[in-house]
């Protein structure tokens, strides 16, 4: 129990630059390996895939089912359509991704507010935790599509002064439905994380719940909150994309995802553009939480295994 024994618990995250470089190198290699496997299978595999019994367990290798990786990449740099004003595909995808990113960010913020509020209530009253937590977990088994029409319909009825409900707001609300969940659970865990020793210390100072929250619980929750925020950000993006498809909102990546999927018979490589776009979008959203983590690094001085 000496200082030496405590040492492994301390943070020693930042690896040496050489190690970081190796990491990235292998990461890129990993993607290349997937691409190589794709092409290898496409080259060697039977046209109609591998069928065992009734089930096809390995995919067909037609250009329709598995376009060449280089075709997918090349397609990104060709114009979306023959129309003279058409942008290259990658630009169209990038613009749509930005729209979705903006909406997902709003949904994420709403999810943070709702999730954190729920966590506070559950931390404050144990009975609230028992009563609400099972429902919060169950809430995620309700398919989004079941209430997309309800959200849009109720939203369209809101009109306060100059404020009018917009389509994208419905999408943001639906996105927040996926985002709030990890945040509520993570924040609750974080708010409950201070040791008895710390809460009793606050009690010995004669301070109440609010000050304890401000000075102890919220700072202590940050190591738990950051992964929750990252998951929430990824969820918000997925939710926004699905909600765009579901409500038919224009301009976002969900829209072009189904649009290009519809054109996949004649232009199979095109459909992969928005798929890559949505992956990059999700990674960017999740990755941007890392910046927050860097800002708050002093609150992450102790490792958690949550």
């Amino acid at each position: 129990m000496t200082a030496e024994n405590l040492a492994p618990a301390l943070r020693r995250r930042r690896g040496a630059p050489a190690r970081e470089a190796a990491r990235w190198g292998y990461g890129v290699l990993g993607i290349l390996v997937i691409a190589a496997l794709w092409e290898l299978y496409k080259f060697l595999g039977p046209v109609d895939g591998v069928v065992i019994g009734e089930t096809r367990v390995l995919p067909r290798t037609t250009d329709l089912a598995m376009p060449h990786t280089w075709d997918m990449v090349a397609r990104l740099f060709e114009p979306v359509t023959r129309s003279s004003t058409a942008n290259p595909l990658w630009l169209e995808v990038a613009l749509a991704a930005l729209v979705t990113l903006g909406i997902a960010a709003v949904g994420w913020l709403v999810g943070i507010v709702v999730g954190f509020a729920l966590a506070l209530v559950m931390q404050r009253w144990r009975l609230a935790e028992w009563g609400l937590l099972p429902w919060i977990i169950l809430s995620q088994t309700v398919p989004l599509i079941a209430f997309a029409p309800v959200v849009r319909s109720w939203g369209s009825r809101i009109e306060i002064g100059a404020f009018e409900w917009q389509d994208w707001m419905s999408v943001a609300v639906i996105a927040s439905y996926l985002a709030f969940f990890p945040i509520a659970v993570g924040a609750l865990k974080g708010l409950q994380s201070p040791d008895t020793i710390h809460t009793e210390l606050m009690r010995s100072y004669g301070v109440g719940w609010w000050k304890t929250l401000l000075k102890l619980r919220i700072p202590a929750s940050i190591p738990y909150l950051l992964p929750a925020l990252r998951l929430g950000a990824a969820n918000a993006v997925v939710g926004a994309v699905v909600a765009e498809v579901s409500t038919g909102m224009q301009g976002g990546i969900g829209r072009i995802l189904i649009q290009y999927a519809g054109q996949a018979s004649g232009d199979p490589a095109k459909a992969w553009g928005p798929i890559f776009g949505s992956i990059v979008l999700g990674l960017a959203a999740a990755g941007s939480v890392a910046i927050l983590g860097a800002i708050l690094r002093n609150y992450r001085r102790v490792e958690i295994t949550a």
Partner: protein
Amino acid sequence: MALTIPNRSRSSANAETTLRVAAPVAVGLIVLGAWQLLVSVGGVSDYLLPSPAAIVGQFVEFFPSMVSATGITGLNALLGLVVGSILGILLAALAAASRPIDWMSAPVVASLAVIPIVALAPVLNSMFGADSQFGRQAIAGLASFVPVFINTLRGFRQTLPVHRDLMKVYAASSAQIVRTVTLPTAVPFVFTGIRIASSLAVISALVAEYFGGPRGGLGGLISTSAASSAYPRAWAYVVASIMLGLLFFLVTLALERLATRGRQRS
């Protein structure tokens, strides 16, 4: 040895267990009651948001269809969960054994974690055929793979240094080390991953049905019912899907408890 005795042992154990069950039930009843009241008395249109009574009515009326649809979706989710979990565990074992594989798999797994089902479903249907359930099972499998992989990998990294030293002291072979220390240490983490994956598998298998394939599952019926404004029936299928999710969650939770029985954490 210090002032760190948990408070909760103080309240009577029985009362706590009762409250733990009663509280969520009470919350559920209050919400359902308010909902019913709002719809039947409060003047909120029961067209888009049908009353709980109407939903229960449809649930009973279409019970055989509820059961068969739950069976179809449930089987897809189960197969996806099982195969996804197995792949997750195997790949995590590889990644734990070799740094390069770990680093190589990182961007792929991170991508899988953020890819929406809407994006994947049409592609998988093209690749594996729209006339089989395989596309949905594959989606459920991919959705399950991610949390199982991440948790299992973490589990494989949890081996205590003291246990590792001990195995070295006993001059144990690699196989013995894996069998006696590495695997048992990882098991609770694997099951935590599977529990998280269970809900994802159900929701993914269900949503995948929206984007093509054979009909008859819960997702297809929710959309078909909603498209003809049969909202009470659509919500009855939603209730069935919630129950399916709950079933998966409870079974995997029980497995997790079983796997961690009689163990001290930390």
